[in-house]
């Protein structure tokens, strides 16, 4: 039974989604306006002109407001049901969007070259929340198999890796756009203030490396919990197998870059292919009841 109207966290999350949408719109406008100042970017590094802009401040303020609303929603739900948001697609959507927005704010505060990532991750957070609304939003207690700090750790690592993977996708898509510009011989105004091809290659390399680290952590923490739960570290479960495929694709991309000199659109295409698997691991398998023991959609 859907009880969207009776749960405050649902409304708080929807309000947060609106704030994230506004942050995206402002970022988009900022990138559009900054396009003309691309020359300055080229001289001083990406984000240089946008750093001083009032639009940037407005985007951050909007995202922070949304994050505060979402955090309040998560805390209310946590207190109400007694466990962190790890059970079912709605809770996963809340957690994922929280991590995505924190990822944008932290990355763009610490590394100037990653400021563009809000253009991908803010809409990602909004879509994630909309996706989550398709599922049961009721508060459901944790079943015995999920009652462990190791599960909490596994989920924490999984969402952290998810943010880095999403950043990797943004860098990969930007890399494809840069290659396309090079082929056509002209650049899009919207992209002018974003990192150039050289920087993009840097960002792809860094995010792929850290995605591989993060996804290894996801598999390792999952394997350990599988051992605790079933006495076996590997069970050929659907999600496990698909995660292995994603891990292999990431490893493949790293080797292609290091040993075969793959750069630009070719490498980005491999990474984008890998990201399809990421989406399947995290979201799509929730639509296939009982295909995996990672299925947490309960009909209560």
């Amino acid at each position: 039974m859907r009880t969207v109207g009776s749960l405050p966290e649902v409304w708080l999350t929807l309000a947060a989604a609106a704030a994230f949408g506004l942050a995206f719109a402002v970022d988009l406008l900022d990138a559009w306006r900054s396009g003309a100042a691309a020359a300055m970017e080229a001289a001083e590094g990406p984000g240089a002109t946008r750093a001083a802009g009032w639009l940037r401040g407005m985007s951050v303020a909007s995202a922070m407001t949304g994050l505060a609303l979402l955090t309040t929603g998560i805390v209310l739900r946590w207190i109400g049901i007694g466990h962190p948001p790890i059970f079912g697609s709605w809770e996963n959507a809340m957690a994922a969007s929280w991590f995505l927005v924190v990822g944008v704010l932290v990355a763009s505060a610490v590394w100037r070259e990653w400021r563009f990532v809000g253009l991908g991750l803010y809409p990602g957070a909004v879509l994630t929340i909309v996706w989550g609304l398709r599922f049961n939003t009721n508060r459901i207690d944790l079943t015995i198999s999920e009652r462990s700090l190791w599960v909490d750790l596994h989920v924490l690592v999984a969402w952290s890796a998810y943010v880095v993977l999403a950043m990797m996708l943004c860098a990969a898509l930007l890399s494809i756009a840069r290659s396309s510009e090079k082929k056509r011989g002209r650049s899009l105004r919207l992209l002018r203030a974003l990192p150039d091809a050289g920087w993009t290659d840097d960002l792809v390399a860094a995010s792929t490396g850290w995605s591989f680290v993060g996804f290894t952590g996801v598999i390792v923490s999952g394997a350990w919990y599988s051992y605790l739960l079933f006495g076996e570290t590997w069970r050929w479960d659907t999600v496990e197998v698909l995660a292995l495929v994603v891990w292999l694709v990431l490893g493949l991309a790293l080797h292609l870059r290091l040993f075969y000199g793959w750069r630009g659109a070719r490498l980005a295409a491999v990474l984008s292919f890998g990201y399809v698997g990421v989406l399947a691991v995290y979201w799509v398998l929730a639509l296939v009841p009982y295909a995996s023991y990672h299925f947490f959609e309960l009909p209560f």
Partner: protein
Amino acid sequence: MLALAGGYAMWVLPFQFYGTPAWRTRNIATAWAFMALGVAMLVNTAACMVDRWPVVLRRTGVSMRIKPRTTEGSVVRSPLPPDEARDLCAGALGGTQDSTSVARVRGRFGPLGTEVFHLALTLLAVALALNAGGIFRGKVVLVEGESFSGRDRASYAEPVPAELASLPDSALPDTTIRLVKVTTSFWKDVQLFNRLEARVAVGAEERREVLTISSPMVVDGASIAVDGFGYAPQLHLVGPDGRTADQFLKLKVFPPGSFDEFDIPDTPYRLRLAVYPDASKEGTGVANASYNLVRPLILARVEDPLQSAGDEPAFQGMLRPGEKAEFLGYTLSFPSIRYYAELRVIRNPGAAWFMAAALLATGGLILRYGARRREVLVIVTAHGSGSELRVHTAAEGWGRSHRARAVERVRRAVDGQVVSAEREGGEDRG
């Protein structure tokens, strides 16, 4: 690697989405073609590790790999005199300085991370090889108060006796376990367990442990956890001749109200039983409020197997624990109901190797990417009344970020201006 990823994508995933059981996936993945590919990858990995070892060792050296003559470097101009600029620069970078330059090397041992990671893959292969020898999976069902001995094959409900008989003693844990108490609860009135604990006493010293589904204990190399429970009413039957039958009957829990059948010892009768754990009688029916053992009600039916299907049973009725019923000179009662627990006993010879490999792999990657080798060399020369600092950098991976930060740090330290930013080069293969 491409073949492996592609093979999995093509063969495994389509089956998976149609609900293929895990054993089929395992069979596909352990088919000879995949095994051969795995062995080839392992050999390849080992060969690469040996081949690259001298390179890795060289990369961990203290000497700088930056060649100032071959890179242009970024230029920062400062109003400060060279000596002062050099001091400030060395302080900001945390590097060492000589009369003309400041140098800093970080992440010397980062390159070892790659080797550690690939070594972990070799350990993983050992784990898989050990597991290929067989994982022992056993199940023991104990009523509260009962004990089992790990090497007593008759104690096991699974696997089948023939398989148990073929196992050496060393495959079974050398311990005794007594089930003290099972605690269970469900959330609201639905089939969602939110608590299942088994308190056990282990060994001759009766060491107390609490097992849950995800917190096993490891005894003699075997992982033992609780992964199920049920209700066990105590059957007490007094026959016409005064002989008694007294035993605990282990019933299925799900679905509630499903019947289990037992032959009653020393009688011609068969007993069919169902337990409603939290029940109240409503007319001729039963209303069960939850799955918790709060107000158990036992539905008992005694049949003569030789009777026709339509014949009246010898007895049929609902009894609370302690209530008695009489039929054909027999007195039937269930003095108590206890929980029973299903314990899974698994001896997984490769688990320790797997986890060692996993930890090494993660640690190796963190070393590789978290402490990647980065070098900065700043050559300081006089420029008019001030100084010019030429910043050269090298890094194993994403060198632009490293260069941008190094230049920015130098610029701030000497209160200077970037007059020429290097845009290419300066990145090692990493």
